[in-house]
């Protein structure tokens, strides 16, 4: 913006910014998808044994990964939201138009986008709250180690009123991720007309599997809380 004449707004200034922003929206999306999948595999270790879960938690905490990653993920999450918000129907008439539009035309992928917008907003609030709650918890002594994240603390949250919260978060996150990764492929040309039906099935399968996995984790934690009497 070195040229003063551009400040008037009467001269169209050429900028690559939209390209960069769109590219980083994709990158942040991919990053979050990868994180969420890793996150799920991590918590799913509880299915094998709570001790394994605690061991992995200790690994992350001892290397300060948990805190650093927590902050970074929160930042990526916020950036991703801001980048994606460029497309969101925030103005009242925009939201009205897109809703009427979805109602007028009989088209699933259009509805999916609306779901993505709504789920994105929910994730922003509930996801950040979750990160805050997990990382700001009082450390507990588990097997001689001071752990913020542990099967015991997670189980206690699930057992003490957070179950519904996590059920909702699980659902919105997995739906958002499923649609998101399908849409990324479509938008950037990696899913073609020919392969689209295949990837739609993959989208559905991945979403469903992760929801099942998540429910199993929550169930296990609930059981664990009963067994260990939390």
């Amino acid at each position, binding site marked *: 913006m070195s040229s003063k004449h551009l400040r008037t707004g009467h001269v169209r200034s050429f900028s*690559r910014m939209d390209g960069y922003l*769109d590219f980083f929206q994709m990158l942040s999306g991919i990053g979050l998808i990868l994180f969420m999948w890793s996150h799920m595999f991590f918590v799913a270790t509880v299915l094998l044994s709570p001790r394994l879960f605690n061991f992995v938690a200790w690994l992350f905490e001892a290397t300060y990964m948990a805190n650093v990653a927590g902050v970074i993920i929160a930042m990526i999450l916020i950036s991703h939201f801001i980048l994606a918000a460029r497309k969101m129907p925030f103005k009242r008439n925009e939201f009205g138009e897109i809703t009427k539009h979805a109602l007028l*035309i009989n088209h699933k992928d259009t509805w999916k986008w609306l779901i993505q917008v709504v789920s994105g907003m929910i994730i922003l609030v509930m996801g950040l709250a979750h990160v805050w709650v997990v990382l700001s918890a009082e450390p507990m002594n588990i097997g001689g180690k001071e752990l913020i994240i542990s099967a015991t603390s997670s189980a206690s949250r699930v057992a003490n009123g957070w179950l519904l919260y996590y059920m909702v978060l699980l659902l919105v996150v997995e739906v958002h991720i499923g649609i998101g990764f399908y849409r990324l492929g479509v938008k950037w040309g990696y899913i073609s007309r020919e392969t689209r039906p295949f990837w739609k099935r993959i989208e559905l399968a991945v979403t469903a599997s992760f929801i099942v996995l998540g429910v199993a984790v929550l169930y296990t934690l609930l059981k664990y809380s009963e067994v260990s009497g939390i």
Partner: protein
Amino acid sequence: MARMLTFNIFRFNPQDEGSKPKMQTFKIEETDSMTLFIALHKIREEQDPSLMFDFCCRAGICGACGMIINGRPELACHTKTKDLPKVTTLMPLPVFKLVGDLSVDTGTWFRQMYQNSESWIHTNKEFDPNAPEERMSNETANAIYDLDRCIECGCCVASCGTARMRPEFMAPAGLMRVARFMVDPRDQRDSEDFYEIIGSDEGVFGCMGLLACEDTCPKDLPLQDQLGYLRKKMGITAIKHLIPGRKG
């Protein structure tokens, strides 16, 4: 026995102070090989001569008769009534300005699009009437033709959520037009030139990948693949400038 078909049709004449927007029901008896072209003309000529709709070639070539047929943007002329349920709802295409009833003004929108997308061959070569034509491979000719098949019916524009929310968006038809010139070797513009036209949120980065265009295009144009290709190409064109050592 022939079916009795019911049509619920959007009615509004903006030029008539007495007209209020409403849905109106018409009934006609189905005949063999009936299309909406036949049905709507029958309604106009036998029941309500004020009914406005557009047809031109009635052969799926000109793109005049786009409308929302039971929730789907389609060409009315190639919609056979035997493929429709007993009750059909007809609405005008959104996004475009309403002329009246089922008729919308696609002409103004598309003429603006030609300017926005600079829909013509950019070359500094002069035509020489005495020289033979410049050679081109038949494959290239076919590739251009494949993208040149757009009939500007407006179905993709009307189905596009982004176009509905953001009037400044170039919409699938505008982006496809640029893709058509990208494959044409006679056009001397390069990626950077095309980036100036579509490298923004009003252009290809505004596309949200809803694919309603892909799913409704009556000519089955490769919208999904082209939009993906354009985004990738334009994305790379932009990102190249972030790599250190390259000229910005």
